[in-house]
């Protein structure tokens, strides 16, 4: 007898940061198409449109309709907005995006990268290969605040410096002041936590400003991100797309049989795009793991599914993935890539295998907060 489950799928496929969530929706739906024997999944897709208030309302509607599992959310602010709702209804959110850590809800399965899997490898790489002076920019919300805080402490602990931090509102594309400030500070590199349209506007404006001054931007002021993915490179567009570093657990250029099959199936299913991304893969992984756990548990009961998911070993496009029973975060394989003119990434370095998640950085950070030696930090917006 085939078991049938309705699963919520909640991504902002419209709004100021919709490009990556559209690829996430595709990733989740692709997993649904790869049906398991004896199990059918009906995705119930909702779109909060980038409106923070809509997330909780839509979550409530999904859960009150009897749905117990939702794959969704891209931004950390949206995730934090809906967690109380999932805890109240004792349901499970499958959160498929890299994030800043320092959270471990019993009602969330985290399939995106934790900070020890993206920002810390990036710090080590930049200090070894580029230089010790960073200029930080980001969108003005929890992701950029916390990720920059982790980055700053890691840099300071290694004797390096953060020259300044600048934040802009989500969706703000007036970015010239930030570009001028970077050119004036002349950092070794730029650490970028912008999202959505602000991000694309920054890459274009920064490249144009450097070109106008005869500066080879990728060589002189490389930009490194923990968010930059292939669909976003396509949004940045020709002329500003190559030479950017990204720390991620997945790139579409990975030459593994599982990834080749994934990217081919994705292209066939969604020829209109957007391209695959790390978050699309994380969404695919989340839905695959959920389906495997539902099949093993034989029920959508949250506790039974949580227990079952920690027993799964998924050969994902990025490599082996499994869920840590203690933190409900994923073992993932960190990599650093550099973008090329085809809006794809060439992989520079990668870990030997899956790295355990450390969402609170208990294994990867000093006991005490590292005091910054920088007295010039300021928030401008």
């Amino acid at each position, binding site marked *: 007898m085939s078991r049938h489950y309705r699963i919520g799928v909640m991504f902002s496929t419209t709004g100021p940061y919709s490009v990556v969530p559209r690829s996430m929706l595709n990733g989740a739906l692709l997993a649904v198409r790869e049906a398991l024997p004896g199990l059918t999944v009906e995705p119930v897709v909702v779109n909060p449109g980038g409106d923070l208030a809509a997330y909780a309302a839509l979550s409530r509607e999904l859960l009150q309709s009897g749905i117990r599992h939702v794959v969704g959310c891209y931004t950390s602010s949206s995730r934090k907005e809906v967690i109380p709702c999932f805890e109240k209804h004792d349901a499970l959110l499958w959160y498929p995006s890299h994030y800043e850590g320092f959270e471990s809800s019993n009602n969330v399965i985290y399939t995106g990268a934790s900070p020890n899997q993206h920002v810390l490898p990036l710090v080590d790489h930049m200090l070894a290969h580029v230089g010790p002076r960073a200029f930080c920019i980001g969108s003005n919300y929890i992701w950029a605040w916390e990720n920059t805080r982790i980055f700053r402490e890691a840099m300071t602990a290694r004797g390096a410096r953060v020259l300044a931090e600048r934040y802009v509102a989500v969706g703000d594309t007036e970015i010239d002041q930030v570009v001028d400030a970077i050119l004036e500070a002349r950092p070794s590199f730029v650490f970028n936590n912008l999202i959505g349209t602000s991000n694309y506007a920054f890459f274009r404006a920064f490249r144009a400003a450097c070109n106008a001054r005869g500066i080879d931007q990728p060589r002189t002021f490389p930009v490194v991100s923990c968010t930059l993915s292939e669909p976003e490179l396509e949004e940045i567009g020709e002329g500003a797309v190559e030479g950017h570093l990204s720390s991620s657990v997945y790139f579409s250029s990975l030459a593994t049989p599982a990834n080749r099959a994934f990217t081919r199936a994705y292209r066939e299913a969604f020829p209109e795009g957007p391209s695959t991304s790390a978050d699309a893969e994380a969404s695919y992984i989340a839905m695959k793991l959920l389906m495997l756990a539902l099949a093993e548990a034989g029920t959508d009961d949250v506790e039974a599914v949580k227990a079952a998911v920690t027993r799964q070993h998924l050969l994902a496009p990025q490599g082996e993935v499994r869920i840590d029973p203690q933190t409900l975060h994923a073992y993932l394989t960190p990599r650093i890539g550099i973008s090329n003119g085809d809006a794809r990434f060439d992989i520079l370095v990668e870990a030997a295998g899956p790295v355990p998640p450390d969402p609170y950085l208990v294994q990867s950070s000093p006991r*005490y907060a590292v005091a910054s030696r920088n007295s010039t930090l300021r928030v401008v917006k």
Partner: protein
Amino acid sequence: MAPRLLQNFNGGRAHIVTASPSAVEALLATLGKLGVSASIVELVNGRAGIDLAALQADRDILFVDGDLDNPLALDIDAGARQPAVPVIGLVGVEAPSRLKQLVHLGATAFLRKPVQGGAVYTALFLGINQFLLRGDLRARLDDMDRRRRGRRAVVKAIIARMTDAGVDDDEAYEWLRRESMRSRQNLEDYCDAFMKKRAPAFEQPGNEPLRGVARK
């Protein structure tokens, strides 16, 4: 300078004093995620079976259930209500008498029962860092008290130096400060020792007592 913030609790040891293990299940699970080992302290005739003297301020944390009737005999500094290790209160019955007991134990953060996992990191962060801050303030107060008590010796030493060397009070103070640094003592202790060392000389016939100088 304020103490540095502790934000990574890995290696910590939590001792949970409660009679309601089911109310702290999420606390035990979340502490494990934070790298903190945790155990529920056995209660014997209503008293916690724990060797308080063996607790270490930089590792141990006490979670105390406010619903229990005085389960611990903590050696609290009455003035500052500063226990030897951080105390985080577990609040069940939200009544003044119960909360007062936790305040008297020196609790610097609170968790409602049954404990929600999402509140644990915040409680640890606040509880431990407030404990460190209070300890720092206590040390500063103690230092101020010590200096206040030594003030009389400093005044006496300045006047004595003025008399001995024929210098004004600023120069006398500077000399005492320099000598105290040279002898690696704080100013108050140095002045106290200086006056004690100087006293026998004045007991010799022909020497005026110090108070005679003060009357000038």
